[in-house]
């Protein structure tokens, strides 16, 4: 327990974690030369790696929490926002995409993202089908010599891929073709998500070394999903009746429940990204409280001032905005800085979805871009600000604020460009082959009956 109080729990985009990931404790024979070298370079070989069961317990429950964010969390958050006739379609999309991405992750996703290949763009297929991974395999954490079971690390990472994919569907909710969506997602995680994860998080990755800060995946998860969502909803086109029919959420109750579950689960997402149960995780935890609280209050106050009434949809929008914004900053900001970050992101997203979006005149049904994209970008760049000691941050990485802001902007930009172009191509391909959108009649009748043969409620 000697390292108990050492600095830990902090990370850098693409930092040492994944470089030393394949540092097997027992099963050295299965590690590749590259991995062995990396491990040797980073963890003094004389020190035996130790697994602390407290870390394992924390990472397992964190993994469960991220699943909880998706099912039922995100499914309900999204489902409550659509009209009754499309409720099940959102629940189905969330459920089946999660299942699909889990299977893909095991078959080739993990290998592509975190495999041993020395490429700058992907991890290769050496770990496809999780070959070589056993219950004795260990993955490194951010503290040298501290490891966790690789199966736990894989499970945790897998849930991130799932939630990113599910986030996208909110943009073209109420009109997407179910089968086409599944094909698109299978392609998208393969062509966009795994490579981006590799480029950003693996020591061999292209973006590795830029020194951008991203504690829990604001870029890979939220900006990625936000951009894919934006491109998607523009391509798919507006809903029939958009701007004319009343498309009010069919159950703000369920949306609030889903948002609450997102908050609850997000502690696994953010504090779990610390990979260890220590003070660093505690910092990520309290920031996940305070940034979110600040964002809720700002949205509520803005609505009270500008419209005279604070709405539930406003409060939960603020909530998600704060959570997204603090994701990259969770382990770097101080608790008060996090309040400010959440508040600023909330104000920006409020302004965007209630005004800018309408001028741009596209139909992002559930504001995936307006919330996740906008707050993701504010959060990514704002991380450089709140990380600064002047804002109470821990000054991770040690760069001056201005320099760090520039690094963050570059990281955001490359993600937007890569994800934007690749998503566009994939949507186009799927659209040509099978069509992305259901028939107008089916859209009118609702996807629940026409795509799934059921109704959400038979009261």
């Amino acid at each position, binding site marked *: 327990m000697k390292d108990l109080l050492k600095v830990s729990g902090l990370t850098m985009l693409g930092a040492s974690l994944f470089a030393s990931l394949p540092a097997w404790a027992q099963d050295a024979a299965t590690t590749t030369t590259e991995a062995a070298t990396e491990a040797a370079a980073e963890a003094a070989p004389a020190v035996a790696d130790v697994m602390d069961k407290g870390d394992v317990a924390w990472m397992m429950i964190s993994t469960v929490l991220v699943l909880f964010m998706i099912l039922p969390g995100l499914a309900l958050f999204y489902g409550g926002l659509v009209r009754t006739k499309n409720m099940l379609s959102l629940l189905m999309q969330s459920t089946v995409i999660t299942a699909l991405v889990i299977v893909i992750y095991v078959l080739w996703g993990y290998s592509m993202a975190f495999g041993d290949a020395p490429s700058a763009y992907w991890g290769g297929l050496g770990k496809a089908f999780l070959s070589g991974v056993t219950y004795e395999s260990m993955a490194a954490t951010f503290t040298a010599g501290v490891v966790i079971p690789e199966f736990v690390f894989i499970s945790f990472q897998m849930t991130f891929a799932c939630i990113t994919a599910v986030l996208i569907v909110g943009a073209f909710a109420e009109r997407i073709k179910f089968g086409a969506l599944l094909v698109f997602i299978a392609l998208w995680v393969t062509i966009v998500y795994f490579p981006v994860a590799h480029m950003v998080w693996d020591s061999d990755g292209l973006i590795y070394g830029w020194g951008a800060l991203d504690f829990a995946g604001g870029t890979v998860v939220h900006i990625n999903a936000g951009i894919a969502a934006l491109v998607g909803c523009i391509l798919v086109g507006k809903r029939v009746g958009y701007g004319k029919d*009343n*498309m*009010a959420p069919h159950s703000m109750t369920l949306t609030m429940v889903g948002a609450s579950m997102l908050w609850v689960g997000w502690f696994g997402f953010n504090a779990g990204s610390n990979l260890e149960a220590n003070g660093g995780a505690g910092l990520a935890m309290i920031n996940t409280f305070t940034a979110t609280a600040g964002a809720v209050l700002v949205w509520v106050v803005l609505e009270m001032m500008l*419209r005279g009434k604070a709405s539930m949809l406003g409060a939960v*929008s603020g909530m998600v905005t704060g959570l997204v914004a603090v994701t990259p900053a969770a382990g770097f900001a101080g608790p008060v800085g996090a309040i400010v970050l959440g508040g600023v992101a909330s104000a920006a997203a409020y302004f965007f*979805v209630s*005004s800018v*979006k*309408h001028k741009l005149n596209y139909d992002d049904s559930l504001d995936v871009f307006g919330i996740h994209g906008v707050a993701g970008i504010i959060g990514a760049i704002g991380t450089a600000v709140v990380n600064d000691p002047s804002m109470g941050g821990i000054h991770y990485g040690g760069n001056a604020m201005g320099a760090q802001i520039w690094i963050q902007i570059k990281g955001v930009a490359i993600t937007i460009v890569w994800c934007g172009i690749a998503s566009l191509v994939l949507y186009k391909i799927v659209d040509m082959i099978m069509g992305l959108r259901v028939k107008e009649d089916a859209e009118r009748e609702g996807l629940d009956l026409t795509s799934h043969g059921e109704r959400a409620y038979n009261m």
Partner: protein
Amino acid sequence: MKLIIAAIKPFKLEEVREALTTIGVRGMMVTEIKGFGSQSGHTEIYRGAEYAVNFVPKVRLEIVVSDSLADAVVETIRTTAKTDKIGDGKIFVLDVQHAVRVRTGEINDDAL
């Protein structure tokens, strides 16, 4: 016999039902409806998208009574449902030709 259809404010339902019972009404059908009229609806805003909700919730009563009771029913509803605010509702009276009680097969006034 007469069919009296009335649209009233939902929170007046219980009061009206009691008043009608007092004057001898022994049955009615109640439906929750959306009313459209001079009482204006409201505007809902969802993340900046405004929806005008033109309908206000109302309760619709249908009561079939003998011709002799009809006027008293109309009068009772009118006075009980009244709040003097816009949207208090309307009462319509129609002719009914025939009435049957399913259980007994009794007809017309006996069926009510």
